[in-house]
């Protein structure tokens, strides 16, 4: 069974989708942690997806995004990048600017964090 349709659905329907190793409550990789922390600092609502339960999730995600590494962050369907880019954008203030642009000025007022399981 393929994950691609569900991955695409999460990317398209989430304000901010974070594909990561582990979950926000149990992060399994330093880079996923860096991306999550940068998103939290920017006040981003996060829909997190753990790619570890099945190696096929990562394969299909990378085939879809053309991005070879984890984590991957998407804002309203568009790839923002991995941990390095998200940290860089957060430090320069550009991440918050992008979030305001795409989600509206009040995006951080009600901050949500949810985890979606694919398996």
């Amino acid at each position: 069974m393929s994950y691609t349709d569900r991955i695409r659905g999460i990317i398209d329907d989430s304000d901010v989708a974070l594909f990561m190793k582990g979950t926000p409550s149990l992060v399994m990789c330093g880079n996923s942690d860096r991306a999550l922390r940068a998103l939290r600092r920017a006040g981003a609502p996060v829909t997190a997806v753990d790619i570890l339960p099945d190696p096929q999730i990562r394969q299909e995600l990378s085939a879809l995004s053309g991005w070879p590494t984890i984590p991957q962050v998407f804002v309203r369907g568009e790839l923002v990048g991995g941990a390095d880019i998200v940290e860089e954008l957060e430090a320069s203030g550009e991440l918050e600017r992008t979030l305001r642009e795409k989600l509206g000025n009040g995006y951080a007022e009600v901050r949500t964090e949810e985890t979606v399981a694919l398996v």
Partner: protein
Amino acid sequence: MSTQPLRELLEQAFPDATELQVTDRTGGGDHFHVLVASPSLDGLSLVDQHRRVYDALAAPLADGSIHELRISTKGAT
């Protein structure tokens, strides 16, 4: 793996690089940080700049010899 083969791949992909560094972050030969500054990256988004680096290092990324890759990129300006 040592940093040298990665450096060579990046030199081939960015012959006009003004800065090119490959660092073994842990000494274990599989966690690397690469820094590339090149006029050929000018005007590209960060995502596209990083994609150029991933393309250059596609082989060692695919065969698992790079376990973790941190990337810093800059245009020439």
